[in-house]
């Protein structure tokens, strides 16, 4: 006992306190400063971070970001924005689809801002009151096995007996699949949309956890086709998988495909509004759209005459579903209990 007391005593405890006290005080060194901008991002980090780095380099304004994860179905930061409503921390929210932006508008979390950089973006991709603005879109496409002699050309293939048990769709409770189904409910009305959903079930459609997984099922030959985002399809094609991308319902008199733009919004009560507006302007610029078109996410620019790679079809060459995003956002929340029941949850 004696040597222990002499050797260790109480001094190490005191040193221990000092050692942890110094770095603890330094934790506050990273606190927010006046000339910076804080952004919450639902777009994949691998695509969005280079854009934010470019903004920092070009303007000198430091950017602090919180990124979402696939694990949280890209809704983690949205939940955080809602939880922080009373004391907002973020200046800007970069949503990977406009429905989240619309929900935030309805919850009073967005503030209006008409960016001069978005002047040329078509009105249908912008909130008329300026609460959010769309840019660089994904398109909902069919990814199909290249080996198929006859390929599905329409969303209605899901209810066609020819494709019984051969289609897969991502869990309709999440992401762009929810958005597309809500858009169909708005476009067709509840009765026809529910008949379509019942038909899909009867046609033994397979449910996957995400669009990425759906694309993998098709790429590995486990399913013949799936409705996915264009970036999922382009990604598999660029990986050399034996798949093709088909823009559905492009024929004359058909409804067209659905376009899902990114959306950016100014947070209500943003701590750094001036910097936030600069960042929003930057994100909505033609140059950002060009970068996102050439990145692996292969997004379709919404500005006219922005250069794109050859495997991306320009927005003016697509027949698209006419969408009122506000209406679709309301419908998304309305049909969630139905979708939950449809899934057997």
């Amino acid at each position: 006992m004696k040597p222990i007391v002499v050797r260790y005593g109480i001094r190490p405890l005191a040193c221990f306190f000092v050692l942890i006290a110094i770095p603890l005080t330094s934790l506050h060194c990273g606190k927010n400063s006046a000339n910076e901008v804080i952004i919450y991002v639902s777009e994949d980090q691998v695509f969005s971070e280079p854009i934010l780095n470019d903004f920092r380099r070009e303007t000198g304004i430091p950017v602090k970001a919180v990124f979402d994860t696939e694990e949280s179905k890209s809704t983690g930061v949205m939940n955080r924005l809602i939880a922080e409503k009373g004391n907002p921390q973020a200046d800007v929210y970069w949503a990977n689809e406009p429905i989240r932006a619309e929900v935030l508008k309805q919850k009073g979390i967005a503030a209006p801002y008409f960016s001069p950089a978005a002047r040329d973006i078509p009105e249908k991709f912008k909130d008329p009151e300026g609460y959010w603005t769309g840019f660089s879109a994904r398109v909902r496409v069919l990814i199909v096995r290249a080996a198929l002699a006859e390929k599905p050309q329409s969303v209605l293939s899901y209810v066609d007996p020819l494709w019984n048990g051969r289609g897969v769709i991502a869990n309709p409770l999440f992401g762009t699949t929810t958005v597309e189904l809500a858009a169909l409910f708005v476009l067709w009305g509840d009765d026809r949309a529910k008949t379509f959903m019942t038909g899909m079930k009867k046609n033994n459609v397979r449910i996957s956890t995400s669009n990425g997984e759906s694309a993998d099922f098709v790429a590995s030959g486990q399913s013949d086709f799936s409705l996915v985002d264009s970036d999922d399809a382009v990604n598999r094609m660029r990986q050399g998988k034996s798949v093709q991308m088909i823009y559905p319902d492009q024929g004359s008199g058909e409804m067209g495909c659905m376009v899902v733009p990114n959306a950016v919004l100014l947070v209500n009560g943003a701590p750094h509004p001036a910097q936030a507006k600069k960042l929003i302007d930057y994100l909505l610029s033609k140059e950002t759209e060009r970068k996102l078109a050439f990145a692996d996410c292969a997004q379709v620019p919404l500005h006219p005459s922005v250069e794109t790679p050859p495997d991306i079809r320009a927005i003016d060459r697509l027949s698209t579903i006419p969408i009122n995003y506000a209406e679709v956002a309301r419908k998304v929340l309305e049909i969630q209990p139905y979708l939950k029941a449809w899934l057997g949850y």
Partner: protein
Amino acid sequence: MTAKRTILTGIFLLVIVLGLFPILAMIAASLHADGRWTFDSYQGLLTSRREWALLRHSFVLAASVSLLTALFGVPLGILFGKTDFPMRRFFTIAFTVPLMIPPYITAIGWADFLGANGLFAKLCGEAAAGAAYNLLFGFTGCLFVLFSTFLPVVILLTMTSLKSVHPRLEDAGRLVTGWPGVLRRITVPLILPSILFGIILVFLLTIGEFGVPNFLRYDVFVLESFVQFSAFYNFGAATAAVLPLALFTVLALLIEWVFLRERFHEVQTVPEKAASPVIELGGCRTGSFVWTAVFCLTVVALPLTVLVGRSFSVSVYASALAVASDSLLRSLVYAVLGASLLSLVGFFMGYLVGRQALPFWRTADTLTIFLFALPSAVIGIGLISLWNRPLTNFIYGSSTMIIIGYLVKYAALTSRITASTLSMIPQSMEDAGELAGLGWMRRIGWIVAPMARKGLLGGWLVGYVFCLRDLETTMIIYPPGHETLPVRIMTLMANSPPERIAALCVVMACATVVPPALAWSLVSLKRGGRNHETH
């Protein structure tokens, strides 16, 4: 007496404020909607068949993982802690590695191994790989990954508790029967409380685990709460959805109270120098070594080797570090701070519990275990609800939030380790100090802390590992620009090159394993040097 009461009560209140208040804030929010009090959030709970099915999935998975870890962990713990098994220290460390890294990294390793372009497909053909891949994605995969992750919990608890068995009892037993009989009738019954505690711990860890079932696509009940957060943005319903899991936790704690608590605190005091008799394996030595080595290679080495193989290029590591070196540095700093504070808080909480120092010791113990078992999403949102106010913005906007998250989530670990260490330090030592006129703080500083230094170091290392690997809590509360490495790996996983993700996983594993291994080596070296001096 006043200092003891003040400090222990203060630490207990700190845990209540940091840990319990956020949960109460969440519960209050779930009971309050549109300006009135309501049970609406709770009315629909467990009314659908799917919810019951998910609950069954969670229970079956947790029970299976617990059972399997006990079946393999106890024999391995005895093998490493009680026999002349060769390289037992190496194997103990090796089996501990999966616990030290985020479980999803192990899952990624297995998915890479069994995937279409993986090693298994090259060795056994695409058809076999496809079948194995399908087996991985579901119950079997979850069971296997979580089993390999939590196996060391039972191994280490078995090994530690073996040290508390007085050698005289075993020596007496050996006079009438061989080692198998001694183990069956004396040793295992004596360490049974620790084994059962390990099983309960594994059960709670599994039932609250979200990352692995989510990655391997196996629906469990935590998902229900997650759906309420992510599809409905309904915090009230999400809180309500956690209730069944909270009940499981309470049930597990009740079992521990009723069956184990008294026996847990009746651990024998073994003199440090008392030599524990070693079982000689004799002819079984080679066979058991081969079996253990193959098992270790399969469970531990294979998934990590696959990740190393996939990322085996300097340029890949250079690009990985270029995007994540700042996150790595932050992770290390936060983990060191978190572990140090956890050691401090855990020491006093452990003293309170281990010495039953104040009447509310049982409440304190239950509270920390309850917070440990709660899903991280609930703790995260609760912390946001409590701390994100203009008055406390200086805390919410800084990395202190991450440290608070660690404290809330992992105080149980360092508290229990301290309690267990203190149970081996006789109360008479403190009594002697008191008779000599030492105050409580001096007794702690001069007698208890020095004697518990190994336990404190062990607690610090456990705290470090759990802080460093934490994902779910940090992901919800980290301030902008302060993401840690596990969070960065998760956010980069979507559409990043698989080689880069594999490299980051390897970096993460090294950052977790190397510092504790170095600390272990230093302590061993020092101990070796001291023994040498004695001889």
